[in-house]
């Protein structure tokens, strides 16, 4: 970051190459659109470039990066909510890989994607950062600016909503299985 703050483009390029996949995947899961995800990722690194001189290494770089991406995604979501007509387009997805994406797995992915998309924004962000970015509650709180207890509450409610949405996919043993079986 010091090198980026010093105006070295090669340093920013190295940061972008190192984190681009994670950033794009995260933004895609939050926004559901490939083109928007790429746009957010580009915007994040442009912002990093201009904000680098003021960067204080009090937190991990990835925390700062996630915060930029989360805020940008929230901005876009609010804009979509305010103006659904102009922003409503068919979802643009990354190309599938048929070799690793058989039909049943694709159905599962579609169900999961729809269930995540239907979560309220804050639950969605907490769950995506927790499940796909492996962030701790504290790290999610740092990346979002929410309190740790708020994050924990969002995770509980978010996963509960997902369990309910995906319940018919779950082949779950009933709670009294042992009693009836025994």
């Amino acid at each position: 970051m010091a090198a980026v703050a010093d105006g070295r483009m090669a340093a920013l390029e190295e940061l972008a190459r190192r984190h681009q996949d994670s950033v794009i995947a995260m933004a895609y899961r939050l926004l559901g659109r490939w083109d928007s995800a790429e746009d957010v990722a580009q915007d994040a690194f442009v912002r990093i470039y201009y904000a680098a001189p003021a960067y204080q290494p009090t937190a991990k770089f990835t925390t700062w990066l996630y915060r930029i991406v989360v805020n940008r995604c929230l901005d876009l979501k609010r804009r979509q909510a305010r103006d659904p007509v102009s922003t409503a387009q068919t979802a643009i997805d990354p190309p599938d890989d048929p070799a690793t994406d058989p039909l049943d797995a694709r159905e599962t992915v579609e169900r999961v994607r729809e269930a995540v998309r239907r979560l309220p924004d804050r639950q969605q962000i907490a769950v995506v950062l927790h499940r796909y970015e492996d962030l701790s509650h504290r790290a999610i709180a740092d990346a979002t600016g929410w309190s740790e207890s708020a994050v924990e509450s969002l995770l509980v409610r978010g996963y509960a909503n997902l369990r309910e949405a995906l319940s018919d996919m779950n082949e779950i043993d009933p709670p009294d299985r042992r009693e009836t079986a025994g």
Partner: protein
Amino acid sequence: MDHPAELELIEWVAGRLTPERAAAIETHLAACDPCRHKASAQRHTWDAMGDWTVTLPAHHLWSCVEARLRDTSGHVRRERTGWPWMVVRAAAAILLAAAVGHVAGRWVRSRAVGPPSTTTFAEALHLDALGAESPVGLTAAMRPLMPGLLKEDIR
């Protein structure tokens, strides 16, 4: 043991509990059907979510970022910050202020001279080239300078 909190079950499924705490949860689940049911549902949800992998196609993020940087500013930022550059900026500001002050001082001094002496005035009008005793020559020399004033005299 009390029923584990829902969040703890989530973290147990995620494999993010300490080994001691995970063992305690597992002991409880073995004896508690409702908690085992919850944990099983969370496990299925967690695993289903894991199927959603995002395969990234080839993309050119960096070239797009670089293009946007050039588009937004017309040039790539070369702004320097940090205390060494602040010292350099301060020094440059002092030098600039000194230079401006020097030039302004010279200009003020040049404007602050007293009334010109007769000799100086005559030198300025190049009258030294004329004979002082030659009124015709003096008039001729001053005509282009004061045409209105001399018109009547010439008549």
